């Protein structure tokens, strides 16, 4: 896993180099990325060296800190492209949402590691839901829809790994299903039918049922309103994703250019440093969000496939590590971290090939961005941490 991750980091650096050697505003940023990489690897080593029990005991303070930071972003954050995501700390700018993700994983792992956990009981599953909802809401408010969705993904994966039955999971997820079906069908009836079926199959405790019902009711009530409150650019992105031909040159510009870049790469690519879409600056955000387009254009299908395989190794080895780890906290933490990583990979890559909305999420370990790189490396360091001590209880 470590080797695969290092391979990704090297590819990332090369691609950032390639994307930023083009003359223009971002020229030469790869040097900074290299410095960050050194720093990030040190941080990863530190994250691996400290026993994970320390993280377990620090989970709540860290979580609270990250909430404070998230709130601070909303108040004093620096905005980029209409969204406040960054905190300015002198020369550093960082996204507290990255820290919040890790902190949330710690807290959830700690909660789910309780001795007599029964996730069919209301109290046992509702508290983690609330714990996840707060950072989710704060990040969504920034607004950073893409990143905020990582929180439910983490929660679901950890619910499941902690032993929640699938049927109940589906029931718990029903508010989200509700949203999805609303968007797909435009009516709430489909969901109603599904919900009745689910309840019949799972037969939840009354208290749980009531809460789930209340949540669904709330969602059903707010959905149409929420749509009104999405930022214009968010609406446009979703609509563009659903129908890129509708506005090919306005909001669809990024998608189309990215697809042209990847598609024109072909089987073997145009060669390192020889991408033409990139060179003519057609590729927007080529060193950050759309770095995978540069991979696809310059290294072709073979290069893009290599990256996917490396990611698959990291993710699958990560899940296996969760299986191997004997300590409950360590195992749960691993699942949480890996699922967050997986989510980011999927959303970013599917975006560059036009199968997911443009969200502005960086590609883990490859995209330009100091703090993202740092946090990704720390995540890997934490996995390494578990790997080193997987025999411990």
């Amino acid at each position, binding site marked *: 896993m470590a080797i695969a991750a290092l391979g990704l980091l090297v590819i990332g650096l090369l691609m950032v180099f390639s994307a930023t050697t083009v003359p223009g505003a971002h020229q030469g940023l790869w040097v900074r990325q290299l410095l960050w990489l050194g720093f990030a690897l040190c941080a990863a080593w530190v994250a691996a060296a400290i026993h994970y029990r320390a993280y377990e005991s620090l989970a709540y303070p860290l979580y609270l800190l990250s909430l404070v930071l998230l709130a601070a972003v909303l108040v004093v954050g620096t905005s980029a492209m209409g969204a406040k995501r960054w905190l300015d700390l002198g020369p550093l700018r960082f996204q507290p949402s990255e820290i919040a993700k890790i902190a949330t994983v710690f807290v959830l792992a700690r909660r789910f590691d309780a001795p007599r956990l029964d996730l*069919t009981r209301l109290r046992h599953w509702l508290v983690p839901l609330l714990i996840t909802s707060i950072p989710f809401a704060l990040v969504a408010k920034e607004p950073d829809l893409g990143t905020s969705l990582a929180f439910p993904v983490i929660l679901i994966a950890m619910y499941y790994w902690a032993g929640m039955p699938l049927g109940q999971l589906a029931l718990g997820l029903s508010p989200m299903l509700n949203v999805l079906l609303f968007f797909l069908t435009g009516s709430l009836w489909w969901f109603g039918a599904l919900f009745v079926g689910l309840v019949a199959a799972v037969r939840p405790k009354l208290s749980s049922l009531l809460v789930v019902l209340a949540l669904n009711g709330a969602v059903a009530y707010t959905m149409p309103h929420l749509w009104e409150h999405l930022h214009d650019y968010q609406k446009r992105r979703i609509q563009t994703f659903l129908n890129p031909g509708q506005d090919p*040159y306005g909001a669809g510009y990024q998608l189309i250019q990215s697809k042209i870049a990847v598609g*024109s790469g072909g089987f073997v690519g145009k060669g390192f440093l020889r991408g*033409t879409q990139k060179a003519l*600056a057609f590729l927007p955000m080529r060193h950050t969000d759309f770095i995978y387009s540069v991979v696809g254009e310059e290294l072709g299908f073979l290069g893009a496939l290599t990256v996917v395989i490396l990611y698959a190794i990291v993710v699958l080895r990560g899940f*296996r590590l969760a299986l191997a780890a004997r300590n409950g906290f360590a195992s749960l933490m691993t699942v949480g971290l890996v699922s967050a990583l997986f989510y980011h990979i999927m959303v970013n890559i599917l975006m560059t090939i036009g199968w997911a909305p443009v969200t502005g999420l960086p590609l883990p370990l490859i995209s330009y961005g100091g703090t993202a790189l740092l946090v990704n490396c720390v995540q890997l360091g934490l996995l390494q941490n578990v790997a080193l001590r997987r025999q411990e209880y």
Partner: protein
Amino acid sequence: MSPSSPANRSRDQRFALLAALALCGFLLIVAGLMRLQIGQHDYYQRLAQENRVRPEVLRAPRGAIFDRTGLLLADNYPSFNIVFRPTPAESAQRMPVTSGWLARVGQLVEGDTTRLKTLVAVANASGQTAVLRRGSPFAVAAAVEESRSDLPGVEVMIEPIRHYPHGELASHLLGYAGEIGDQELEERADQGYRPGDLVGRTGVERSYEEVLRGRDGAEFVVVNAWGRRVATLREGPPLKPVPGHDLVLTLDLRVQQAMEEVMAGVDRGAAVAVDPRDGGILAMVSRPAFDPNEFARGLSVDRWNELAQGGSNPLLNRAIQGAYPPGSTFKIVTMLAALRAGVATPATRLKPCSGSYAFGGRVFGCWKREGHGSLDFVEAIQHSCDVYFYQIGTRLGLPRLEATAHAFGLGDRTGVDLPQERKGLVPGEAWYQRRWGSHMRKGLLLNLAIGQGELLVTPLQLALLAAEVSRDGRPLRAHVVQAVRGVDDFRPGRPSQPGVDADETAWEALHRGLELVVSAGTGTAARVPGLAVAGKTGTAQNPHGKDHALFVCYAPVEKPTLAMAFVIENSGHGGSVAAPLAGAVLRRVFGADSLARPPVVQAPDTSKVIRGD
């Protein structure tokens, strides 16, 4: 975690499901890649080569600048740049740069072919547009436009440059805006500046850069391989350019023109006119001046060096950046300080002037060798008698003199909305301690009382002093911008100095004395028939050659609408050099029609488009 719980599936099963899900995800990606890169490769290959979509910057026009009556002082002017836009390297239709092409283009842009060749090669390698000729005449631009089909890649790009219709007029106050430099570009990268942007460098152009500058927009255009625009793409709302705000200055073009004409013969010096009713600057001249248009068009290194390093430094705005000893104009401050402190009354007669005054083992001379004889305070300022003011100085002491000077805002920045203003200097006890490590010797106080010694003031501070005296010490905030169009709550700042408190008899005596200066004293050269002018001459000794000539004044005395200060470097006496200049301006301004009309805030509406386009 309770893996043994009967309700739970085994961990192995859970792992299997998670792993399967992840695998499905990755397979989905691979499927997507195969579809794009293998299945549809040809299609996208063609798109990459032929159909080019490129973002084009829509430049937001910089705000224009008007005087208080709505007359234009600065706007934008289209400049035609001949550029070369490269096509993608692998494009089938890529223009081979033949010698014929080079020759034709070279002929059009009047450049040599080797330079062209390098420019084109660099552009092709980097994919960036290269400017072949900046600011070409319209005829050339038209010729290029006509032969575009024969000359793929070559285009005319219209870029706004700054235009100052009055040339040198008020050049220091307006400043200039020029193309942003590489270093500045780096410093201001986070503010969204791009190569080719205009940026304010000095004067109002600099201090109101954020307001004047608009926000560029962008549109996406589809071009074919010949660089021809096939279609304009629908642009999103955030991409529309937002024009900069227009500025309405307090400047009055009539007053400025009068002052410019009068100052035209001055080698080095400055003059400022302030409206005593609100502190608005009516005119500001600094000599030597420069033509901001020259900077807007772009300056050669030689020409820049000539301007920046030439002996008299035309770029220096002497009105706010030149600090001069005030000379006898400072007697206004001394007199008021004495009357406030009660060390003398307007009728006080001191030891008669015999042409010199002995103090502390030294002899201090009066400018009038033969002496003024016995004078009261009003007569003393009328004739600018040094001996009288020496005696006042010894009675007054430094702290009270210093306090009154500061109350008028001397020794501090006025806070005018222009960049790089100097503070000047009003030395106090603490300053002498720092500077000399000892108390001030009393002899220095005598010099300060007549405005010599370490005192330094800017012409703007002097004009403001005259304006504040004319309104009995109520403080003013000097300002240049009266209104920002489109910004309703724009207000000039509040005065930073406290103003001067004195009883009415003191002010009355001062006004009377200053009026006598012009009607029958040292400043008769500034006399204007039918107009009550109050003024004070000054002649400042300085170690670098001839004396500086100074004059401050305000008029009409009963209801002042104009206060001015003149400082003419190394030219001689205030009464004979500076006062006549003030008189000439006063005659021009008050001769034709009165300034006593309300300031015009609303200027006629002019459209935001680049004029002349």
